[in-house]
């Protein structure tokens, strides 16, 4: 809301010493937040001038400049012999623009003028071979709001609107300042000077005279006939008629200036008055050209397919949801949003019907959205306009039409409908102090609320407060707390640390997720966060089969990009994208991980229900909400490109391999104390022979790790063999035991036995290892330390070498014990895997 300070001061008598900045600061603390202070940026001899002569002069650079003689009245110098035309008292000025002619009134910044828009003081200077004694200004240079003339160049004033030598700062109101205030949705009343003035008076503890109460309300029957067929949509509708308007009368400067400063364009006197009253009182209104209206005004819903040409010359097709004003000719206005072209005020309009109504905010809001037609009127109606103001609004328009346009107020008014008084609210007198924490006395609360327009009754420890008709935000007790606190001062809220009774710290899942984050970093991985938006092309690049479950995405109704219509089902899309970016930027080693969510739609998608807000939903209703949501587990993903161990002076490097990916995820499992086993699998986007699925003890597959399929690596521009992996962290956390394994070890001496077996290549090493481990109670641990294929073993077989540690919990092993355990291990390998001992 743009509030011209001069206009505001005409409604509240602010002490002279209050600066605009102080005013703005105070209003900000009254919930009318300052966006910016506009204007006040011009000082010095800014003067109206008349162009006496123009001499276009072509320059070497191809540009043509105008060398002008300008009459600036009392600011003229006696003689400018060099300037074009007769050498009369004037000034010579060089101007680069061309949109003005001899005889035009322009604005001249004479030497010494400061223009804030340019942050520059104009001087007399030599340019293009002449001494330019000032500057002819554009709207932009003057810091005026952009309008149609800004693009054209120089601001040309209407003929007869001023005389050469007039002070243009006063004429254009450039000395005036305007507050641009942010009006929160609950303070609709502040979309008017009336509302801002009331809060200003409150903020500075000044008396306030409501301008709406200064309007004389016309009475009597015989007003323009009106039928309201939809009182829900239109609770109140008022009209007055003004005739005999002189359409040639211009808008007075003061009014045009206030409009301009408030951000509206001056159009014609009648339209300007209509807009002026909307800004002043906050009551949107509409003037119909009475000559163009035929028959009664009817407020009703539109019939499907009915059309209207709105004031912006757009033909709009209506639906029964649209609330309209119609006459015998059909629809002539879109209620609360925009008027129709057929009854528009024209250059010959002398008689008008002034309408000021109250409309249902929701209807207006939806209509505005449906027709994509935001307007100043709709902006006010959708937030809430004082319903008691319709007659005063129409009467104020009529008053100004009489005063400024020479019109005559016709006897009789139309006032249909009734204003519903807001319901009174009851609350304890100490509530504002209790909720705000500020020492707000009941007396202060009562005073503040009364000055806000409330009627306050105190019954012992209770207030019964009836809010005024313009306050739609005062419905609940806490709403009045805010009003009281606004006056007591938000800056006076003390700082008191609450003392909760003691929390339980992080949840187990939260603590475990942190462990995982540290393990990943400890394993040399750099964490990234990636955007979750993904499309079919990304999944194609992973080589997912058409039937792959991960192609079923949670889709968005309004994705930012067609290429990324839904949410990701795998972290690998984002991680490979990030890996590509790093490689593209010249990184040889890119070892990255992400802990983030993926989004997996339920088998049968159902809509999430919407409940009321008057009571807590039942447990079943809440369960239904959760059941409608997709599965959104946290995953851990990783990509390993380049050397896992760097080449150095003390040894060669080692490139990342499938096994590194498995190793990292095994470490994740280890810190969670979850047992995972690896099993060969063939899954996209992995190398078909180098992928492990990771399996929990109960058979649940929690994810995969291995080498990225070389084709997928190439597709992403990744060099060499790439390790990748991804697991469902939520499944892992669920499998994590509440406490880890207990430490248990024997202090008796160890016996070490190394055994190498030749087995079929297809036999998994882990199967042999676990068979050896289970062969005897004395086996403490088994570790594979070598794999060999080649000349020493037959084709199709390989040698696996294990080191066994044998130990008893209760005694030193005898040679016989050791032999028995060794024999048992050898026997197990021989019988289970047809292994031969090497």
């Amino acid at each position: 809301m743009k509030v011209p300070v001069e206009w505001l001061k005409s409604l509240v008598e602010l002490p002279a010493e209050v600066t605009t900045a102080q005013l703005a600061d105070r209003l900000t603390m009254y919930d009318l937040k300052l966006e910016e202070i506009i204007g006040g940026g011009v000082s010095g001899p800014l003067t109206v001038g008349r162009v006496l002569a123009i001499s276009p002069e072509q320059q070497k650079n191809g540009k043509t400049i105008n060398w002008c003689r300008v009459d600036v009245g009392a600011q003229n110098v006696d003689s400018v012999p060099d300037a074009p035309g007769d050498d009369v008292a004037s000034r010579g000025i060089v101007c680069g623009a061309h949109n003005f002619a001899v005889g035009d009134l322009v604005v001249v910044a004479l030497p010494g003028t400061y223009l804030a828009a340019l942050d520059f003081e104009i001087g007399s200077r030599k340019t293009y071979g002449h001494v330019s004694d000032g500057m002819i200004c554009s709207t932009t240079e003057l810091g005026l709001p952009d309008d149609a003339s800004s693009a054209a160049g120089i601001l040309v004033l209407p003929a007869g609107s001023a005389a050469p030598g007039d002070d243009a700062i006063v004429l254009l109101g450039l000395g005036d300042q305007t507050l641009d205030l942010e009006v929160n949705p609950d303070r609709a009343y502040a979309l008017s000077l009336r509302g801002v003035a009331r809060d200003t008076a409150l903020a500075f503890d000044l008396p306030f005279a409501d301008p709406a109460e200064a309007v004389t309300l016309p009475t009597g029957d015989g007003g323009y006939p009106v039928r309201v067929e939809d009182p829900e949509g239109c609770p109140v509708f008022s009209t007055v008629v003004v005739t005999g308007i002189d359409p040639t009368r211009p808008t007075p400067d003061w009014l045009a200036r206030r409009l301009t400063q408030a951000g509206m364009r001056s159009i014609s006197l009648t339209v300007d008055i209509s807009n002026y009253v909307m800004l002043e009182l906050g009551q949107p209104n509409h003037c119909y050209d009475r000559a163009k209206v035929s028959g009664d005004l009817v407020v009703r819903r539109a019939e499907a397919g009915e059309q209207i040409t709105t004031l912006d010359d757009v033909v709009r097709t209506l639906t029964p949801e649209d609330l309209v004003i119609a006459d015998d000719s059909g629809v002539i206005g879109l209620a609360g949003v925009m008027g129709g072209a057929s009854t528009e005020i024209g250059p010959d309009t002398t008689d008008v019907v002034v309408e000021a109504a109250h409309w249902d905010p929701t209807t207006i809001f939806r209509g505005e959205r449906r027709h994509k037609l935001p307007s100043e009127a709709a902006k006010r109606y959708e937030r809430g306009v004082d319903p008691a103001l319709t007659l005063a609004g129409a009467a104020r328009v009529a008053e100004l039409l009489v005063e400024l346009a020479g019109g005559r107020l016709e006897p009789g008014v139309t006032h249909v409908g009734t204003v519903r008084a807001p319901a009174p609210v009851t609350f304890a007198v100490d509530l504002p102090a209790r909720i705000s924490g500020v020492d707000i006395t009941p007396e202060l609360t009562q005073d503040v609320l009364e000055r806000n327009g409330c009627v306050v009754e105190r019954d012992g420890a209770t207030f019964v407060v009836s809010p005024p008709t313009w306050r739609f935000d005062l419905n609940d007790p806490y709403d009045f707390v805010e009003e009281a606190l606004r006056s007591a001062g938000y800056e006076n809220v003390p700082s008191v640390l609450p003392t909760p009774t003691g929390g339980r710290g992080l949840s187990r899942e939260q603590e475990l997720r942190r462990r995982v984050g540290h393990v990943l970093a400890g394993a040399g991985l750099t964490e990234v966060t990636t955007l979750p938006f993904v499309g079919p092309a990304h999944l194609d690049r992973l080589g997912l089969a058409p039937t792959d479950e991960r192609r079923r995405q949670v889709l968005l109704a309004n994705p930012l990009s067609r290429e990324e219509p839904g949410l990701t089902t795998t972290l690998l899309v984002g991680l490979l994208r990030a890996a590509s970016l790093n490689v593209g930027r010249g990184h040889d080693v890119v070892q990255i991980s992400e802990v983030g969510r993926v989004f997996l739609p339920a088998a049968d998608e159902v809509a999430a229900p919407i409940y009321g807000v008057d009571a807590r939903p039942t447990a079943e209703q809440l369960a239904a909400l959760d059941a409608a949501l997709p599965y959104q587990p946290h995953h851990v993903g990783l990509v390993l490109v380049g050397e896992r161990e760097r080449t150095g002076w003390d040894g060669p490097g080692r490139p990342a391999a499938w096994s590194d990916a498995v190793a990292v995820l095994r470490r994740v499992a280890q810190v969670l104390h979850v047992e995972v086993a690896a099993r060969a699998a063939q899954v996209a986007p992995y190398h078909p022979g180098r992928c492990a699925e990771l399996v929990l003890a109960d058979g649940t597959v929690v994810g995969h790790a291995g080498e990225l399929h070389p084709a997928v690596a190439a597709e992403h521009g990744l060099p060499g063999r790439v390790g990748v992996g991804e697991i469902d962290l939520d499944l892992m956390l669920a499998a994590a035991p509440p406490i880890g394994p207990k430490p248990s070890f024997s202090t008796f001496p160890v016996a070490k036995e190394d055994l190498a077996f030749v087995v079929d290549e297809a036999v998994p090493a882990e199967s042999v290892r676990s068979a050896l481990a289970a062969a005897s109670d004395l086996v403490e641990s088994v570790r594979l330390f070598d794999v060999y294929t080649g000349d020493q073993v037959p084709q199709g077989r390989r040698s696996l070498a294990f080191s066994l540690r044998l130990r008893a919990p209760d005694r030193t092993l005898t040679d016989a014990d050791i032999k028995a355990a060794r024999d048992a291990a050898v026997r197990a390998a021989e019988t289970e895997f047809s292994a031969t001992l090497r």
Partner: protein
Amino acid sequence: MSAPNSDYDPVEVTPLHPDEIARVTSEALQAVTAATTLAELKQVRIDHTGDRSPLALANREIGALPPQARKEAGQRIGQARGEVAQALATRTEELEAVESAARLLAETVDVTLPTDREVVGARHPITTIQELVADVFVAMGWEVAEGPEVEAEWLNFDAMNLGPDHPARTMQDTFWVASSGAAADGPGAQDSGKVLRTHTSPVQARSMLTRTPPIYVVCPGRVYRTDEADATHMPVFHQVEGLAIDEGLSMAHLKGTLDHFARAIYGDTMTTRFRPSYFPFTEPSAEVDLLCYVCHNEPSAVASCRTCGGEGWIEWGGCGVVNPRVLVACGVDPERYSGFAFGMGLDRTVTSRYDIADLRDLWDGDVRFTEPFGVGL
């Protein structure tokens, strides 16, 4: 060797003469001292204690002495041999120490050689700041609550007192999950009843719906708005919201909590200020500003401060007393309990602290962005 002779005078046997023993002993001790390497010492040991050494030879003569002289000579020789053996042991120890020190010195390396063969990992600052914030509140006795990112419309909006016609519910601001069967952007596109949560407030609602007061929870997490990605906007960002529900809570407790939070993150001199504002889920509502952590609103520095644009304060977030309507929708008795809530962005906390001009750096995954943070902030 001659047979024992009872008349034999030991003094007359030259090798056993005390002067002679003293002489060879002295010679031996001098040789031990003169040895400078273990190898030399080895030769000294052979020369002065070996079978052919003067002391060994003298010892051999003892047997020829009469019994009464034997004891005296034996004692004299034994003492001399012990003296020499002791000197040898001491010298051996000394020379071993010297030689070991020399050997280690020869193993000297260039300690400036790099030790960078292991790949070093790092954690994303957004992860770390979320943990940091969580820790500040956990230390105050709060708990950390979480919820889904694809969220029920009712929890994201209705329960938070954002009614059916609230502008935030439009597809202009909020990502809607497509409704199966409905064309995107067509009628029914929003019928899924599911959105990408626009704030972490639905976690507050979930907390109230699943816990009984007193409730003190903080909810860090990812949220979504339909902003195209550019230097200052992202469609996904991170927030932390807090909610406290207890008997007797007021705006003053909100202020105290935020002051404490601000000091924990920005240092002990930090303070906050309230400005009135409006949010559907709080009443009264306030914007909370942080004292500018660059100029501290000092008169001499504030005017030229680029961090706060000369304001002296930096917008931090929104907050207020929980609107009783929200309490009712979430099953909390507003007659008995009151509460406060607050929320602020975390991405900007990171970018402003490290002068990161482009928000997209947080999301691109360039390892050079994350690496400098290591595992902390």
